[in-house]
């Protein structure tokens, strides 16, 4: 990569009365990209978004947008569109007046502004003739108005704070596709906050996974899924997310499971392959959809079926194994033999993490 990125965030810090909400955040976003900030509740996603919008002052660090340092620019000079989780539509203004608000602030002339309002409303799939007040709209419509209002000003950056969280499951699925389409049509660089990993995987070019005020990993969705940097990410990404199995190396070839049971896997999953010394405590991440179920064979992980959930097309089988409960995803047609089964992890290099730091252990071949 040459030249500096479109949005460049460096060492952004923020504390609330001594409680650290953001530690040294660095993030680069390319022009026209759709990036998600993904993380559990309270990890600092909204705080970072507010800082980007200029509504909150960081304790340190700087933000550059399009080569310009905007760290100390007040929000009304930033030209950054922001969509709040609760939409924050102005209740005393009509829908059109809401969308026109930013254009009035720019001092745009009336006919041009009205045209832009029509365009923006059409772009989010709303009837431009809508003459009602925000309070009379459904949640989904309000959300569209909020987006139309934010894109009407042709922002340099569009920030979405959990834009889908107030919608029901069906609508959420539909709107997330629309959001991505809208992004592709307008080309506006977009950052979306979410704590729903499926939403992030489905819409984003890149995902920044956050936890405890830090960015743990910043990757394209597939890379994040295939090579999570920490056990936390492995246990967070995927539907359902990966099973985290605590184990410690007994010797070069076998693992001791949580309940003391010994497991001798195939060579590629053995401690030696991962370069783990005897006695080291590790976590192995096993994807529910990558586990094969059988009754006999080399290197199987013995387990006992405790529950089966039918989820349409697939079944989720809950298996008690070595003191840990795992979830396995199998197709609904697959027959399940007896309660006692063997689980076979995929042959590739394992997703193995250090139990203390949570960091990925890379085999050094």
């Amino acid at each position, binding site marked *: 990569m040459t030249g500096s990125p479109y949005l460049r965030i460096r060492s952004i810090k923020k504390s609330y009365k001594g409680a650290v909400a953001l530690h040294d955040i660095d993030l680069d976003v390319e022009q026209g990209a759709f990036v998600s900030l993904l993380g559990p509740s309270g990890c600092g996603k909204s705080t970072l978004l507010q800082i980007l919008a200029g*509504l909150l002052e960081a304790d340190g660090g700087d933000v550059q947008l399009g080569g310009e340092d905007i760290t100390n620019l007040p*929000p009304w*000079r*930033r030209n950054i569109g922001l969509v*709040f989780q609760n939409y*924050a539509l102005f209740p*005393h203004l009509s829908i059109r007046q809401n969308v026109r*608000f*930013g254009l009035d*602030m720019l001092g745009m002339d009336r006919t041009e502004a009205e045209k832009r309002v029509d365009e923006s409303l059409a772009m989010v799939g709303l009837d431009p003739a809508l003459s009602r007040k925000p309070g009379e709209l459904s949640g989904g419509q309000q959300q569209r108005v909020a987006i139309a209002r934010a894109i009407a000003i042709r922002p340099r950056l569009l920030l979405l704070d959990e834009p889908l969280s107030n919608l029901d499951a069906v609508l959420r699925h539909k709107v997330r596709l629309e959001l991505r389409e809208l992004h592709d049509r307008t080309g506006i660089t977009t950052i979306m906050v979410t704590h729903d990993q499926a939403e992030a995987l489905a819409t984003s070019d890149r995902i920044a996974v956050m936890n405890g005020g830090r960015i743990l990993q910043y990757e394209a969705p597939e890379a994040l899924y295939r090579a999570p940097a920490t056990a936390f990410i492995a246990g967070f990404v995927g539907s359902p997310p990966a099973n985290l199995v605590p184990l410690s190396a007994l010797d070069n070839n076998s693992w001791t499971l949580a309940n003391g049971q010994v497991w001798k896997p195939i060579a590629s999953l053995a401690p030696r392959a991962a370069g783990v010394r005897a006695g080291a405590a590790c976590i192995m991440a096993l994807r529910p959809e990558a586990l094969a179920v059988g009754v006999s064979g080399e290197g199987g992980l013995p387990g006992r079926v405790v529950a089966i959930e039918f989820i349409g097309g697939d079944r989720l089988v809950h298996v008690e194994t070595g003191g840990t409960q795992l979830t396995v995803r199998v197709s609904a047609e697959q027959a399940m033999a007896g309660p006692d089964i063997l689980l076979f992890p995929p042959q590739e290099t394992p997703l193995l993490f250090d139990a203390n730091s949570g960091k990925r252990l890379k085999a050094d071949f």
Partner: protein
Amino acid sequence: MTSRFSKGLMLAGVIAILLFLLAPILVLIFSAFDGGNVFRFPPRSYSLRWFEEALTHTEYRSSLWVSTVLGIISTAIAVGLSSLAAFGLVRGKPSYRLGLEVLLLAPLTLPLVVWAIALLSIYAQLGINGTLPGLILAHVTITMPFAARIMIATFDEIDPRLEAAAKSLGASPWHVVRRITLPLAMPGLMSSTAIAFLVSFNDVVVTTLIAGAGWITFPVRTFSRLRTEGIDPTTIAIAAMIVAFTIVVIVLGQRLFQLSRRF
């Protein structure tokens, strides 16, 4: 059937309550048109003489004028100050918010007479007893708690994210106040203005003690005449005119308000 019955019962209840509330006003208005020399109800002969009397009576006219001017000035000051204070308390969220809120309500916790005596001794020290500034200050003091209470509740109800959203759409702080905060606070401002004006206009106790003989407000004059001469029908006529004026203002306000909502 039952629902019809209960609806009828409810209607009867509403009418009873309205009658209870409105009866004194009706009595007042009817009596104002009475031709007799003393207050009577029901009226026995009709005449407009007390209205004529009221309009030509210089003492009442000057008192009404004093009350109105005093009410307008002290309401403007009280609503202005308490709006600023309430906005600061609600948006700034200082750690002493609760303490200050209690302090703002303090005048409500003491009997007005005690409060008036305290003000009297302070104003005597300052040498502003019996002056208009002293009287205005006293009225601001007694109306502030009401105005502040309403304004704090008003700003508490306005979602700060609306202001943040406006800022992100390019609105400077001045535009945020003018286009978002003020319009949303308007109902609260209206009611706090109305309440403050009424509290000021109705006050007898504090005004009697602070104003001395220099500035006699309408209720003070009425009250003193009541004690020396009994009920004066002129007062009744003036009261009837105040009621009529209030109704006109409310109807106009409603009309304008609805019109403003339509656009």
